[in-house]
């Protein structure tokens, strides 16, 4: 499976990046910052998901429009009244504020979408496995068991159907409920007995005797350290530079952007730029040989 270069970095790099980007994205209300974050997020999301990502982004556009238009109905302060709806003023400032809220809403969703693609569960446990060994083991087990139980539940319901105990949409409520309880109770018995076998087998193999090891191995390389330093440094610059203030209601006020904005854009562009760099190098090698 192809992974983009940012996903191949150490999980700590991925985690810190998303922490910084989502943290800034949620707090900063300056339109330029929010727009930059949303744009970079969408670009990276499309790079990760390809054409499949488009439908998600289109879906978001609808929600964004709804948030923008609905906000002036909730929030009526502002000086420039566009028109009155049922006696309540519908103001320009509130409309702008709704727009920025919609952008922030969308950028959280897009960046969380990227997060789900990049920081998969095995990376999460690799990162936190030695800090919270018991809980990350629990998480690994649950992540394996959810699909396994789902499969088993389907098997049980098929088997019940084969002996004439199946359920359909047209049956009365009571019968459907009983069938659900039956499936769940069979599943529980199977799962609990299985869990004891798992636990005993874990103990026999020396669970808890030594440090946890991980399925995927990640090593901190020089590139990872450099990236971590970049993320930390750029975040610090963004925070110190200021120029992120903006308020919307009752008066529209947007401060001038400073050099912090450039740092913010650089921070956001790390994954797309890494992707592009790899593509360019690859194409150059292809043509040279």
């Amino acid at each position, binding site marked *: 499976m192809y992974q983009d270069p940012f996903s191949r970095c150490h999980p700590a790099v991925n985690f810190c990046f998303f922490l910084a980007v989502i943290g800034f994205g949620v707090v900063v209300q300056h339109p330029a910052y929010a727009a930059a974050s949303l744009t970079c997020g969408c670009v990276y999301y499309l790079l990760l998901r390809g054409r499949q990502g488009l439908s998600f982004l289109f879906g978001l556009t609808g929600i964004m429009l709804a948030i923008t238009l609905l906000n002036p109905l*909730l929030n009526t302060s502002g000086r420039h009244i566009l028109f009155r709806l049922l006696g309540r003023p519908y103001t320009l400032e509130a409309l702008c504020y709704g727009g920025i809220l919609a952008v922030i809403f969308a950028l959280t969703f897009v960046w969380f979408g990227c997060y789900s693609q990049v920081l998969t569960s095995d990376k999460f446990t690799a990162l936190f496995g030695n800090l919270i060994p018991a*809980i990350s083991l629990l998480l690994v087990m649950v992540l394996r068991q*959810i699909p396994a139980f789902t499969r088993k539940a389907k098997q049980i319901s098929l088997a019940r159907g084969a002996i004439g105990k199946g359920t359909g949409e047209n049956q009365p409520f009571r019968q*459907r409920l009983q069938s659900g309880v039956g499936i769940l109770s069979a599943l529980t018995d199977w799962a609990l007995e299985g869990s004891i076998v798992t636990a005993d087998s874990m103990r026999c193999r020396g669970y808890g005797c030594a440090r946890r090891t991980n399925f995927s191995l990640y090593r901190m390389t020089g590139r990872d350290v450099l990236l971590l330093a970049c993320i930390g440094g750029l975040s610090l610059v963004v925070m110190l530079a200021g120029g992120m203030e903006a308020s919307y209601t009752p008066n529209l006020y947007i401060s001038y952007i400073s050099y912090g904005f450039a740092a913010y854009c650089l921070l956001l562009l790390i994954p797309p730029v890494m992707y592009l760099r790899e593509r360019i190098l690859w194409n150059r090698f292809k043509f040279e040989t």
Partner: protein
Amino acid sequence: MKQSPWLNILFLFVLIPATLFLGRSIPGRWYYLTSTLVIVEIMVPFFVSFERRRPEARELVIVGVMAALAAASRVAFAVMPYLKVITGIIMITGIAFGPQAGFLTGAIAAFASNFFFGQGPWTPWQMFAYGFAGFWAGLVFHGHPSWRKPWVLGLFGFFSILLLVGPMLDSCTVFTVLPKLSLANVLLIYGQGVPVNTIHGLGCGLTLLVLTKPLLQKLSRIQRKYGILEDRQ
């Protein structure tokens, strides 16, 4: 096993007020990030005390199985998609194994199932709300087997969801979507949540009504057969 209460005290009385105090200085919608941080800080002591206990493999596995069952239970009731069973199963785990196991089961079930349905700003809130459901049910019923009458449990489930767990889930919307925290807006969001919470509560109450007896029997059988998750002194 003895546990020092200092960590919990540090979190509850020092870190959370500090977060609230410092969080207010964030310009704009300060409550967005601050509320999420506070929720995470409330959960940390639970996880830390579980880690400190060095749980045995059998305890871990049982909690894991219950969390996975809760998350996978929607398949069993696929013909009734509006019936939400997950909170009911988490509550039953809390009743059987106590508040701490209930909290863990709920929080892990929410976190793990979000790996399938997508993580988002709602993840900490769901973890907390579901964990609280298990904790709360365990707190009330764990030490009192005689209270576990089906209709009591059903009513308990319904009202717990409607009045406590549902509003906790709605709080995520309040803090992340609202442009301004005003009483009217907040009440609007909670008011909109009432129908959803009623359905959720009915599902949970119904689950507790029907499932508690068979599930508790199975769990206590396992518990007695293998001697797990008993209170270790």
